[in-house]
């Protein structure tokens, strides 16, 4: 459904410095699936999501949506046309709703832009959607500040889905919410995905949640995909040293396991994505790195059934 080929996004910082936020990402997303995208801050996961909905212009590569190549530069007609099918749910439910618009105005706006129905049918649809996200029609006249974080996120979901899109980018939709409220939002997303047959790109840094919700898990580091494959496989049997470090650092809500677990740490921090050195991006923090890792950038290769990793030290899988 979505085919991303060699996607590049560079930000020019001036003084001849280029920041490679997304550097050569290939990814295909199957219809009706949930793809989880994980990585630490600065890995380029949000930038990738924003390029997909046209909020950032790509610097190179191609994105195909149902066979159609998406434009390099969106004009307002492109947004209107593609906005019907491709939508986004944002991270911060406090910043992503206009405080001066009522809930009705917020929900009706996408329909207006799509020239969908007339005033009363739009209002009806907004009311129906509010109920669908477990809020009440009586809330239509209220303003965002009257709602809690979880309720606002549900309004954000209703706004994204009201045009009945096919593909939705969820950019950290639960990181700003408390645990008890996270489950409400995740359940709602899972349910809507099923009933509407949505395809989701779920961006997050919470590994356990991404494993739970996704079919496919993609791990990014410094702008590149280092591992991808079936979510359970990547989570329980990671092949790339970075994914292994991530799963080992991921704290479990189980004191006995936590105490007996080895917390081998990866040293250091994510280096700056400005003027990257040659070789593997992770080489500087990898305790297994050899000379080759510092010279030659590894390509993604098949390391287990349907599982791909970009590491020189992992053997290729053969059938």
């Amino acid at each position: 459904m979505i085919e991303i080929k060699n996607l590049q996004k560079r930000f020019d910082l001036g003084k001849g410095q280029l920041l490679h936020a997304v550097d050569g990402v290939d990814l295909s997303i199957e219809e009706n699936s949930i793809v989880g995208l994980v990585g630490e801050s600065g890995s380029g996961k949000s930038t990738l999501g924003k390029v997909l909905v046209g909020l950032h212009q790509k610097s190179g590569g191609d994105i195909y949506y149902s066979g159609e190549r998406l434009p390099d530069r969106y004009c307002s007609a492109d947004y209107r046309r593609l906005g019907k099918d491709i939508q986004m749910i944002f991270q911060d439910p406090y910043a992503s709703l206009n405080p001066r618009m009522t809930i009705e105005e917020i929900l009706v706006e996408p329909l207006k832009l799509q020239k969908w129905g007339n005033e009363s049918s739009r209002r009806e649809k907004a009311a129906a959607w509010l109920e669908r996200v477990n809020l009440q029609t009586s809330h239509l006249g209220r303003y965002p500040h009257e709602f809690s974080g979880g309720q606002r996120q549900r309004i954000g979901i209703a706004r994204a889905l009201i045009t009945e899109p096919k593909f939705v980018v969820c950019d950290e939709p639960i990181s700003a919410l408390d645990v008890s409220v996270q489950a409400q939002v995740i359940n709602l997303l899972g349910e809507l995905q099923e009933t509407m047959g949505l395809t989701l790109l779920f961006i997050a840094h919470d590994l356990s949640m991404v494993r739970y919700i996704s079919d496919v898990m993609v791990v990014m580091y410094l702008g590149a995909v280092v591992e991808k494959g079936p979510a359970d496989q990547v989570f329980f049997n990671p092949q790339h040293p970075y994914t292994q470090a991530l799963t080992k650092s991921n704290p479990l809500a189980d004191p006995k396991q936590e105490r007996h677990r080895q917390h081998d740490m990866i040293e250091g921090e994510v280096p700056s994505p400005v003027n990257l050195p040659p070789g593997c991006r992770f080489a500087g923090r990898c305790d297994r790195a050899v000379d080759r890792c510092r010279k030659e950038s590894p390509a993604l290769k098949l390391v287990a059934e349907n599982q791909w990793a970009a590491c020189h030290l992992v053997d290729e899988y053969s059938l």
Partner: protein
Amino acid sequence: MTDTTAIPALEVKDLQVDFSAQGGKVQAVRGVSFSVQPGETLGIVGESGCGKSVTMMSLMGLIPMPPGRIVGGSAKLSGREILHLPVAELNKIRGVDIGMVFQDPMSALNPTMKIGEQIAETLMVHKGMSKSAALKRAVELLDRTKIPEAQKRAKQYPFEFSGGMLQRAVIAMSLACNPSVLIADEPTTALDVTIQNQVLELMRDIQKEEGMAIVLITHDLGVVARMADKVAVMYAGQIVESGSAEDIFYRSAHPYTLGLKEAMPAPNMHVDERLVAIAGSPPDLFSPPLGCGYCSRCETAMSICNRQLPELIAVGDAHQSRCWHQHQMMDASVEGLFQPNYRTDRESSSSESAQ
């Protein structure tokens, strides 16, 4: 592991904190008690607005008064009362006997001062060290918190540090005077998991060497499971359950603790099995409910839960829970008050409203 007869490093009893607001007051902390022994880690868990940060801030005298007001209770640091101390006295304790690490290290540091000088300032003020001696010690402290090239880093400003490095610098600063208690308020919430791992490990190591008590405030059950010996679960300004980490995770007694655990996906669950979400949202502490704070969200609420506040009662060795269900089992005198399925009766008459 710890000597229970020793004087606790920090002992808080029945702490109550109010904030006056337009047209009334918000009862942010409603009678919180806990204690930590030297060398022990207490995890305080709860969602935003449950009063966990206000509890710790009020101990340090860091809440603005007014509008804040400590209504009652006591807090003893190694046996000495510290609530209501005059500022001059508090200043001798803060940063000396109690160290504090905040969630956002960037706003905890002065952006216009070099890192080394900020740490040295603490030493000069509290220990009366000379500037050169204090600067030398600051470099040692940075080195101890595993900041590479500490000598060079000490001469840099906060903006030149990454988030993880800044948090190490804040930890170095809070350790400068060898505090007996370290209060860490969501110390790793703003950090990535691999960096979180490093910072938690560092806190562990330092605790092993120094034997200080740590009070770790967090909303992340994983972090608590990893770090805490004892856990207190807070909800709506009160502790609803407390006990050893094993009690809380394997023998959860309070419906809220259970709810929190079930809201997270188990390792074998997949999206077609729904998570057990806790419906609704926490009560407004502007007018706290008469009964149990969790009543309106509780699946097993009974009629008494809405009318009368349950006490914390022992459900095991050093394991306490604030729930009428346990009273029902323990205490026959309130029998007759219980009417199960209370929630289903009430739900038919009123429906959920937005705050």
